[in-house]
């Protein structure tokens, strides 16, 4: 057959594409349970890290069932509603009406100390950001925070998942003295910027060169925590 004829070209292209598509979809389907499991384990590890429990890929599931004693979803008014917290997809919830949304809450227990863990989801420069924030029992002070991202710039915005960025969140507060919701501010200007701005209660340092990621993170924390405002106020009085 003439290699330059239209027919040959068409057949060649079709066969090649179908073949490649078959192999790829076969791989994707065979590997997908393993990928799914990896993602679940990662989620569990993230939740555990936010309450300072070290876990490895092997023991994450065991530790999770030992320490995460309770999980439920709440609505915007802070009332419990039916639903499974672990499988709640925040992205889907965001597209619903505010009053129909479910917000997942996890309660961890370690050494008789309870912490509330709240998942976060937001936008960075190149893709989604997510994270978990755990609160002390006053429902105001941050006990720990973990963040992660899909595709932020390596060496710049991507550093939000590094310990040196997450650590300073510990001890920051969401509400001011009068009980107004303030959230956390990310201050530009390198190391010590929050201190210079005199914002020790609610401020942390941004990443130099990662301004859009830092701002995205600030918005994420603010927008997500705002949804829990009523819930946190209620849990505090209880």
């Amino acid at each position, binding site marked *: 057959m003439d290699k330059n004829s239209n027919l040959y070209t068409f057949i060649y292209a079709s066969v090649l*594409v179908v073949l490649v598509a078959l192999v790829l979809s076969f791989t994707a389907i065979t590997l997908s349970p393993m990928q799914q499991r990896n993602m679940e384990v990662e989620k569990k590890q993230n939740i555990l890290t936010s309450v300072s429990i070290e876990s490895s890929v092997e023991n994450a599931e065991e530790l999770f069932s030992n320490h995460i004693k309770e999980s439920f979803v709440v609505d915007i008014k802070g009332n419990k509603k039916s639903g499974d917290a672990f499988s709640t997809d925040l992205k889907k919830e965001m597209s619903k009406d505010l009053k129909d949304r479910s917000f997942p809450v996890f309660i961890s227990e370690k050494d008789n100390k309870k912490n509330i863990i709240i998942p976060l989801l937001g936008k960075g420069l190149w893709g989604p950001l997510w994270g978990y924030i755990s609160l002390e029992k006053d429902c105001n002070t941050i006990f720990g925070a973990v963040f992660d991202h899909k*595709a932020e710039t390596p060496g710049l915005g991507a550093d939000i998942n590094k310990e040196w960025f997450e650590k300073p969140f510990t001890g920051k507060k969401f509400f001011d003295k009068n009980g107004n919701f303030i959230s956390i501010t990310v201050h530009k200007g390198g190391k010590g910027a929050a201190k210079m701005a005199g914002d020790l209660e609610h401020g942390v340092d941004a990443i130099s060169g990662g301004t859009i990621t830092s701002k995205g993170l600030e918005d994420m924390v603010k927008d997500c925590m705002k949804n829990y405002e009523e819930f946190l106020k209620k849990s505090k009085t209880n």
Partner: protein
Amino acid sequence: MDPKSKKLLTNPINIDNPITIQVLGICSALAVTVKLEPAVVMSISVLFVLAFANVIISLMRNTIPSRIRIIVQLVIIAFLVILVDQVLKAFLYDVSKQLSVFVGLIITNCIIMGRLEAFALANKPFPAFLDGLGNSAGYGIILIIVAFFRELLGSGTVWEIPVIPDFVYEMGYQNNGLMILPPMALIVVGIIIWVQRAKTPELIEN
């Protein structure tokens, strides 16, 4: 190894380097050289993709219709890259998270298309395999050199480990924020080209 095969491996590292001589693959050299670690991971992934794409295209070379050869090459590259990505996600989840955007960048890497077009289409699988290894090594070496200097001067670290002692900072030294930005990668590459041309007699033009 006969001298011809050896040349296929060593030429791209020096006198026929894809970045400094052919000036290909500059896009990713700018993007992933902020830190050493992603640069190394990127080099390894390119090594894998280029070596195998070269072999596959070389095996298919007598059947590919010349009018759609570029598209065929792209399909093969994209196929390999997605395959690598899927396998990493299932078995080496941590590595795949680090790679994230770079995997996509490999598809657009001009070195891979360049080698398929210039070498694999006209040569047997084994030489094509060596050519792939040589070229990705040449690419990787430049990437690592650039990343080393950018990380050292831009962040004061090497492989995330701080190497500049505190007293230097106290004396007023600051990390150069410009090094983190893409233009400095071009300047570092430029300096490498300068040094390489000055040191290698074959490359000196009159």
